[in-house]
């Protein structure tokens, strides 16, 4: 059993990175490893967009990550600086920036880049999926 982390930097739909990462995450968990967390950075933060409405006959990545979190207790950490610039705010940040409405909700959590460094150095393996 090893501890894994995933760094995802590609948006869903625009690039295959999110599909690859989710599939890899499931395989890691299926092999009995511990997937400690997924960190969303760069355009990867769009994976947390709660308003995403893909066609019904296509995979819904946002829901896919939420299911992974529930099934395996994986934390879903979204870089707050990358997210705010891209219009991804949870309720607290929306209030802080005087915006009506929010676009990120649990199990995704906005967090600092320090969590990425921590995840990368704490885990036995960090695997990056870029766009």
């Amino acid at each position: 059993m090893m501890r894994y982390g995933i760094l995802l930097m590609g948006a869903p739909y625009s690039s295959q990175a999110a599909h690859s990462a989710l599939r890899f995450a499931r395989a890691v968990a299926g092999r009995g490893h511990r997937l400690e967390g997924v960190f969303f950075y760069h355009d990867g933060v769009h994976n947390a967009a709660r308003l995403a409405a893909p066609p019904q006959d296509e995979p819904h990545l946002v829901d896919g990550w939420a299911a992974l979190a529930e099934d395996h207790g994986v934390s879903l950490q979204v870089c707050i600086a990358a997210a705010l610039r891209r219009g991804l705010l949870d309720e607290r940040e929306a209030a802080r920036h005087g915006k009506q409405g929010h676009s990120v909700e649990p199990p995704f959590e906005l967090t600092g880049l320090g969590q990425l460094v921590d995840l990368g150095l704490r885990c036995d393996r960090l695997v990056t999926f870029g766009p």
Partner: protein
Amino acid sequence: MLLHILNRSPATSEVYRQALSAMGAADRLLLIEDGVQGALGPLVECFGDLTGRLYALEEDLSARGLVPLCDASVVKVDVEGFVTLTEEAMRTVSWF
């Protein structure tokens, strides 16, 4: 031994050169996503002599209809094999 992961086609992006220049003599290279285009006969030459250390993700080859065109020198692995490669490597480095 490190595992390098490449998701761009050598026909489109020069990033494969960066991956090659960062690889040690025992390192492995796994082609995923559009990177599996590099497993095709004429393009596989971009990777020089990586015989036995060049892998391609089978699901990505298959979705693109490229399994029959994959060069014999490339080792095909499924996503389970991908995980195994990360287990065996000390560390992974992604190129995109």
